[in-house]
């Protein structure tokens, strides 16, 4: 793949300085994103996937702080930008979609007011031109009769429609990258499928690059080109979706896939990951997954590096095997 890189994240660290201690929510995350690519960022609660997304948007609030690392968007360094710089960027070159669309929408303003303002904040166009662009954006995310819908208030929309409007607003200024944080998690299956359909089309048609943050491996499998799996603030495995989901290197990825019921024979016990994720306030020495890992041994008391095991495939593990022993109906 020699597609042009739009976003390059290097060694990102975002820590939260709380009363109880320093929580290393994101601790050395690196990845890159090409034009038109969808990167699935997968992890469980507390893995740092959402904080990573917020860091990319410059939206980390105290007591959180971006401690170090580099975020390059089309060659421009974003880490360390003052708030004013972020404000010019946000919504124009990089936009975010949240799990709750009401994070984006103002409940007391009409949709057209909000959309026109969002356009005119970044581009010097007339109200009429802005309105036309808003109408096009609504049509592009599959909202029927966008002209009428422009005059409505957010509460007049269903959950799925609201999420579409939020996506339309994110698209308004044709950003290079969209960070989507669990945007379909709260939606019903049939509505989720509609949104995934629109998103898929958008990325293919416009070359928009997307980071899709989710806990749902199945959605990632259907949507993403590449996947990065996070655990306790770090990326533990990264690679093309097919390769990672079919034959993961890291025991955590392996466990996650095994936990999905359809990967197990009907009615049998699921392959489960024992234990639970460690507290970010007191991460163990060495590999943070070791306590739950069947492969752990003395070597794991040292934090493994994220190393390239195959072309385009990285894993952070001292014992990477490329097997899915128990899954696929007990193929072992």
């Amino acid at each position, binding site marked *: 793949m020699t597609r042009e890189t739009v976003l390059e994240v290097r060694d990102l660290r975002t820590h939260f300085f709380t009363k109880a201690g320093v929580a290393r929510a994101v601790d050395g995350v690196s990845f890159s994103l090409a034009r038109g690519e969808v990167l699935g960022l997968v992890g469980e609660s507390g893995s740092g996937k959402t904080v990573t997304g917020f860091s990319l948007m410059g939206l980390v609030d105290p007591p959180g702080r971006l401690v170090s690392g580099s975020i390059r968007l089309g060659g421009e360094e974003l880490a360390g930008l003052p708030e004013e710089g972020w404000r010019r960027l946000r919504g124009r070159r990089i936009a975010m979609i949240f799990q709750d669309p009401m994070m984006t929408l103002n409940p007391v303003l009409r949709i057209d007011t909000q959309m026109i303002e969002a356009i005119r904040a970044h581009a010097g166009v007339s109200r009429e031109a802005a309105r036309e662009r808003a109408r096009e954006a609504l049509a592009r995310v599959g909202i029927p009769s966008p002209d009428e819908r422009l005059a409505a208030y957010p509460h007049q929309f269903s959950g799925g429609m609201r999420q579409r409007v939020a996506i339309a607003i994110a698209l308004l200024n044709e950003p290079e990258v969209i960070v989507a944080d669990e945007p379909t998690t709260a939606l019903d299956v049939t509505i989720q499928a509609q949104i995934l359909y629109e998103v898929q089309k958008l990325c293919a048609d416009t070359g928009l690059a997307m980071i899709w943050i989710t806990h749902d491996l199945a959605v990632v499998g259907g949507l993403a080109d590449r996947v990065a799996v996070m655990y306790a603030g770090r990326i533990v495995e990264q690679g093309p979706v097919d390769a990672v989901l079919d034959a993961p290197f890291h025991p955590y990825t392996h466990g996650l896939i095994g936990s999905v019921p359809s990967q197990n024979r009907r009615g049998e*016990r699921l392959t489960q990951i*024992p*234990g*639970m994720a460690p507290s970010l306030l007191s991460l163990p020495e060495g590999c943070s997954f070791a306590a739950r890992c069947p492969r752990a041994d003395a070597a794991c008391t040292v934090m493994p590096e994220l190393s390239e095991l195959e072309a385009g495939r990285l894993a952070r593990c001292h014992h990477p095997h490329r097997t899915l022993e128990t899954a696929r109906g007990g193929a072992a």
Partner: protein
Amino acid sequence: MASTETPAGGAAPVRPALDTPFRRFLSDFTDSRLAVLAAILLVTIIILAVFAPWLAPQNPYDLAVVSIFDARLPPGSQSMDGVTFWLGTDGAGRDLLSAIIYGLRISLSVGVASAIIALTVGMIVGLLAAYAGGRIEGLIMRIVDIQLSLPAVLIALILLAILGKGIDKIIIALVIAQWAYYARTVRASALVERRREYVEAAACLGLSHARIVFRHILPNCIAPLIVVGTVQTAHAIALEATLSFLGVGLPQTEPSLGLLISNGFEYMLSGKYWIAVFPGVALLITIVTINIVGDQLRDVLNPRLQK
């Protein structure tokens, strides 16, 4: 048994054992220095009030000690017996500092007693309204609405005009003027709690209505009650002072802070400011500290701010 093998369950809870609700509360409360200061001040005031007979320089009600010849002495003067009146004396020759401490005792006990009684009444009525619903709820809440739409001072004035003077009368008046705040607060939080899944779980477990209301719902409504309780105590103290100032509150023989202010007011124009001002300052400090503590309680106990 296969399920016990899962190390998951055996693993330690997420938070340490010492993390009881009370400890969390304490740690959150001490976040604000102002609140800690106010709390210390409030405790001091309460200690002063409770132990007044041992802490006050003089018993202002003891006519054998009080001498009319010491009347209206400025702060720092000495009596004929050589006692220093740090805050001066009032029109009857009482040591003002002692009078304030004893007045505080009366003001606080009236405020706290009326708050506790009003809280109990309001809590039961509010819980009943929330749990019963329908017509009972409608009736109770309309009474509450009417009550809240009338100024508390007015209600208390009318009641005292009928009941007459006395500490018991003023407590009754304050309870009647204030129970509705508690009823409304409890009903609001009980309505929220009622819909939570743990209440449904309790119903599934076949627990009685009384048990569900008092053992499950009520303990979860206590936090907002405490907040309203502190603020309403301050309110009750101010209300009592107002009533006493207007002369319908307590008898002259046992003056509360409001009555002290009222008594001193006539001397204001003759330059003897201290007789009214010092009790006023004491009242102000008391009410402000209670309110600051109440505000911090509200911030700490607000469920929406909890993680």
